[in-house]
Structures are given as structure tokens and as C-alpha cells.
């Protein structure tokens, strides 16, 4: 049996199915907190609030028909931001799933860049090709292009990390995925390869209770998700995913191990999806409303706020201001992104290959000619007027 990671916690020892907690739901400190400067703590808090504001703005944009789709991130801000804060983006990469707005938000991706993706406009780094929430960034952090097919990022993360190892870089790759995604082929192959090659990867399973309408009990008969590491010789730990400091601490330890050449770690962050799966989903059909009430009481933002104020790291007014600012920021970002034009027609044909091959040139010429002749809003260069 794989021995659990030798966590360097002073006062805590925990088994694989007991979740690490540092701040309890009321905001009280119950574990040994990582030593973090006030600015770092505030940056984390701000990112969580901005994540919620971004999420909230997107839900509104979808409801008013301005964008087609979004995925609620409410309730999981601590998981994303706690993990993000543990990264060193000068060396580390992220191979994310779609429900992790907090990572790019924490690391300084501009909210308008994210909104560009929600609108699929001309400045969207995915060039309007993907659905909303399928971000791709290569600066300031390497945040790999998000795929819809689930789990595919997991072996990719292992490859990215193996390349780092080969190049004698100190980086690690963090990959995130949902509870449901542990059943994909990518989880199985990625975990296994990482175990065999000792790749510097951190596997972060965001167990939010559901895969669309499928609860975790119907997803797997295992006792939680951390235990799945054993099948691959990878230590697994469980953390309270609504406790940003606990997530930070566990991910930091896992990163330290990885950087030290001690191999991968599987982390299960237990949290809850405070909403539907996506804007297309109605959770009232399958989630007991009582669950929402219970988890509201475990809100990661409220909890962290209570902690920070009670520890004297943040004043209540400061917290209020952060919220107001964040909301204004996201509203402005949405406005700005909405005003941008859509990508030009030729972008259907570029980036299929490094160079546009003749048959796509021909199809591109056809499309631009055809739609121009219809006067359907494209000019002869295939650009749409504003």
C-alpha cells in the first residue's frame, strides 16, 4: 500500500479520507495556517471575489441572451484560487478543466480577455472557435487550451511535465478535473504514466458532488477519490475544497514534492457546485434543495472573509470595497468585450495547420467570395464590419 504523503503539518496528521481543514465554515482557525503575507492573503481573497463576480456577470449575460453559455463557478472559488496561489507561474503550467475561472483570474489574466472568450469575439484567444469558458492563455501563465472532451488534459499534463523534467526545468504541471472525470480514459492513462515516470504533476480532483446530474455515488464505488491514487502508486490526500488555505497548503506540499523529484500527488478537494451544471441545466430536477442550503453555510468566500477580518488582516469596509470593485470590473469587461467585432471569415480556415494548405485556400476564397456576394456583412477581406 502506498504510504500517504509525509505532510509537514505541525499539528495535523490525517488519513486519506479525512479532509484537511484549516478554517472551519464559521471562519475559525482549526488547523495550522500556512505562513502567508497579508498581501498574499488579500490577493487570494480578491481573486475569489472577482471569480464570483465574473461568474455572476456571465450568468447574467447568458440570461439576457448576450452570450450562449456559461458554467457556474459559485462555491468552488477556494479550490481554484487556493491551487492557483500555490503555483510559480514563471515555471509552472496548468492543464485545466472548464470550471476553474479562479486560476487565470488570480494570475492576472485580464477579465476582458476572459470576456473576449465568453463572446467569442475578434480578440478571443480561441478566435471565436470554441464555446464560452473554453479558455486558452499563454501569458502571464501557461494555461492550456480547455477541451470539451473530458479528461484529455490529464495525460497532456503528464507530457508537459515530462518535458520539463527532460529539459531540467524546475516547473511542475497542475491539472484539474471534476469527480466525474476520474472515469475518463485520460485519468486512467495520465495517472498511470505519471506514476511510472515520476512526473512532476499535481492532480487536483475537484469533487463537487455531481457530474451534471450524476451524483458521486453513481459515479464510482470507491471511498472518495483520493484513494484512487493507490491504483497508480500515487499518494492521495483529501482537502476541504471550500477552505482556501487548506487547498493552498495541500497543493503547495504536492508541488514541493513534485519539484523535489518525488513524483506526483492526487488531491481530492471536496466542494459543491452551487448551481446547475451549466446555464443549460436545471438542477432542481435532481439536487435536493436542502443540499444548497447546507453548502451555502460552507461558502468559501464568507468563510475566508470571516477568517481574515477576525485575524485582523482585512477590514470589513475593505472587503465590501473589493466586492463592489470586482462587480464593476466585470461589468466593464463585459461591455468592452461585447463591443468588439466577431472574428473575420478567414479565421475559419487559419490555424488548422501552421500554413493554410491549397485546399483550404480554395475553400476560404470560396467562402469569402460567396458571403460577400450575398452582402451578408462581410467585406471583401472577409471581415465583418463593426
Amino acid at each position, binding site marked *: 500500500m502506498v504510504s500517504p504523503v509525509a505532510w509537514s503539518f505541525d499539528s495535523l496528521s490525517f488519513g486519506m479520507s479525512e479532509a484537511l481543514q484549516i478554517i472551519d465554515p464559521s471562519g475559525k482557525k482549526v488547523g495550522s495556517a500556512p505562513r502567508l503575507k497579508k498581501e498574499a492573503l488579500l490577493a487570494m481573497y480578491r481573486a475569489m471575489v472577482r471569480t464570483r463576480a465574473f461568474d455572476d456577470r456571465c450568468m447574467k449575460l447568458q440570461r439576457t441572451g448576450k452570450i450562449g453559455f456559461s458554467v457556474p463557478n459559485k462555491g468552488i472559488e477556494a479550490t481554484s484560487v487556493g491551487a492557483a496561489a500555490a503555483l510559480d507561474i514563471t515555471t509552472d503550467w496548468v492543464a485545466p478543466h472548464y470550471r476553474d475561472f479562479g486560476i487565470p483570474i488570480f494570475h492576472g489574466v485580464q477579465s476582458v480577455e476572459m470576456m473576449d472568450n465568453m463572446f467569442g469575439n475578434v480578440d478571443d484567444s480561441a478566435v471565436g472557435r470554441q464555446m464560452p469558458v473554453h479558455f486558452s492563455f499563454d501569458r502571464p501563465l501557461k494555461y492550456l487550451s480547455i477541451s470539451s472532451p473530458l479528461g484529455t488534459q490529464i495525460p497532456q499534463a503528464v507530457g508537459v511535465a515530462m518535458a520539463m523534467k527532460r529539459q531540467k526545468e524546475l516547473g511542475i504541471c497542475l491539472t484539474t478535473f471534476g469527480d466525474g472525470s476520474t472515469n475518463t480514459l485520460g485519468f486512467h492513462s495520465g495517472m498511470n504514466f505519471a506514476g511510472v515516470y515520476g512526473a512532476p504533476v499535481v492532480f487536483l480532483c475537484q469533487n463537487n458532488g455531481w457530474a451534471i446530474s450524476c451524483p458521486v455515488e453513481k459515479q464510482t464505488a470507491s471511498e472518495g477519490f483520493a484513494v484512487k491514487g493507490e491504483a497508480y502508486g500515487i499518494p492521495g490526500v483529501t482537502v476541504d475544497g471550500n477552505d482556501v488555505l487548506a487547498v493552498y497548503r495541500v497543493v503547495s506540499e504536492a508541488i514541493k514534492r513534485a519539484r523535489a523529484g518525488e513524483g506526483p500527488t492526487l488531491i481530492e478537494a471536496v466542494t459543491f457546485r452551487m448551481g446547475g451544471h451549466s446555464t443549460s441545466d436545471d438542477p432542481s430536477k435532481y439536487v435536493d434543495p436542502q443540499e444548497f442550503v447546507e453548502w451555502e453555510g460552507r461558502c468559501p468566500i464568507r468563510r475566508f472573509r470571516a477568517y481574515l477580518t477576525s485575524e485582523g488582516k482585512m477590514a470589513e469596509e475593505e472587503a465590501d470595497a473589493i466586492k463592489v470593485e470586482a462587480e464593476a470590473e466585470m461589468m466593464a469587461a463585459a461591455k468592452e468585450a461585447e463591443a468588439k467585432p466577431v472574428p473575420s471569415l478567414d479565421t475559419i480556415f487559419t490555424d488548422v495547420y501552421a500554413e493554410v494548405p491549397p485546399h483550404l485556400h480554395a*475553400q476560404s476564397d470560396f467562402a469569402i467570395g460567396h458571403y460577400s456576394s450575398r452582402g451578408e456583412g462581410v467585406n471583401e477581406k472577409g471581415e465583418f464590419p463593426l
Partner: protein
Amino acid sequence: MVQAVNDGLKSIMREDDSVLVLGEDVGPKGGVFLATEGLTSEFGEDRCFDTPLSEDGIIGVGVGLAMNGMKPVCEIQFQDFIFPAFDQIVSEAAKMRYRSGGQYTVPMVIRTPYGGGIRGGLYHSQSGEAYFAHTAGLKVVVPSTPYDAKGLLISSILDPDPVIFLEPKALYRAFREDIPEGMYTVDLSTTRDVLPGDDAVIFCYGAMVPVATEAARRIKESRNKDARVVDLRTLMPLDEDAVLQAARDCGRIVIVQEAPRFCGYGSELSAMIAEHAVEYLEAPIKRVTGFDTPFPNTLENYYLPDARRVTDAVEEVLDF
């Protein structure tokens, strides 16, 4: 059309106890498009159940169920997500009868919404029929009307071989049609003449059928020419005689598909005609297709063939 699918499932499940429905979110939620709504409540969790997030498992377990007396109807949430199950489909379901000399067979249906039209971008829009039609041992069925959807689905479930049942999601809620209650079938491997005509023929299927029909209407209006519209309905085994007959009758041919052109299904139609009816051709065989790129999102409407693009192609073959 999605109600017709639902109705088809209910009708046959009432008659045949061995029909099971499995897939992601097909249970209490009723599927992301509600195609399986009400099945779990009517037939129990035994007969319509949610599965873990594993397409390989859905199809692999489905193959096992089918070999042991069941008639599984497996749902893949979007055709774009069928690829993790590609091995079970192509290597197993398709080849089981052959490799066991008929000892083991796979009477299974794989239902999946496919195609564009819902702003789904790269991964909620693809049309993969060519992959399946190229795989010997599979049948491939694509309805384009509610009536056909129900009748073809029931035929597919009754069929002794594995059927890939592609549901054009753009048509799920496109129009209403009264359809008969209870069981009825539409024969596989038959085409449907949507519109008669001898001046040209448009071959199409799925969500391209209304597009082609609209194009034919426009041609009639603008030129008073009659373009026959043939809905192929079953792509494999195709009613090749019907296709060749229409090609010979009309001599001017347009093929419409959403999928990328290169090695797409339309290529086969064209090649078949170029092999067996070349002497009847009065114009190049035109294909109107999606482009040879991944499926875009914002510009979806410029990617998908529409009535205007089809009309242009028909005019071109008429003018040749």
C-alpha cells in the same frame, strides 16, 4: 423530433422487456435534450439508468448486455464524445458477429445527437457519419423528420446488428409533426423522396434535408426547374439502387452534408455515381459541405451549408 425519439423509446420499451436505456444523465434528468425524459419513472432504474462518465464503459457494457439477450440503447451525450468509445464500436460491436461466426451478436443501438446549429463550437457540433459508414459491420441511420425518427429508431432497436443512430440536434425542436402512437417501423436501407423532380437531384440527410428542400423550392420559384430531393435516411447499408436510379434520372447531381468534405460521406455517393452512372452525368457532381476545418463557433452560420449555398450549386449544375 426529440419527442418522437422519446415516444419511440417508450413504445418499444412497453412491448419489449429486453430494451434497456443507458448513458450519462439519461435517468432522472431525462438526458440533456430530454430524449429519455420519463423513462426511469415509467420503467424503473433497471431499464433506464445513468452511467458513470465513461463512453467506453457505456458501449463496452452495452456490447455485453447485447450479447446476453438484452437490446441496449446507449446514449452518447454528444456525438463529439463518442471517440473514447471508438475502440469498442469499431473493434468490438462492428466485428463481433464476423469474428465469432455468428455465435455472438450485438443487437445494440447507439443514439447520439450530432451536427451543428446550436452554437456548440468544436465539440458540440460535429458530424462523424463517415467514420461509421466506413466501418464494416455497423449500420448508420439518420432521421430527418419526427415520423422517421420514431419509425427508424424502432427498426434500429429491432435490428439484429449494431446501429449508430445519429439524431440531427438542429432538428430536435425545429418543427412539429403529428406522428402515430404506439409501435410502427420505417424500414432501414430505404431512401425517402422529399420532393419529386428530374432536372437535378439533391442527395441529403439529417439537418441538411430542410436546407436542401428550401433550395429546391427556390430553384422551382426562380427557374421553374424541378430538383428532386432524396433523404438517404440510412447511410449504411445504403439503398444504392435508389441513389443510382435518381442519378440516372436526373444527370445533374448535388450532394449536401454538414461534415467536412474531404473523405466525407458525400465522397462515397459521388464515387459510386462516377463508377456506375458516369454515362448519365450532364454536369460535374457538386458537393456542398462543411469546410475541411474543425467546427467554429461564432462563425457557425458561415460554416454550415445553407439554402443559398445549395441553391448556387444546383444552379451551377443546371447551367453546366
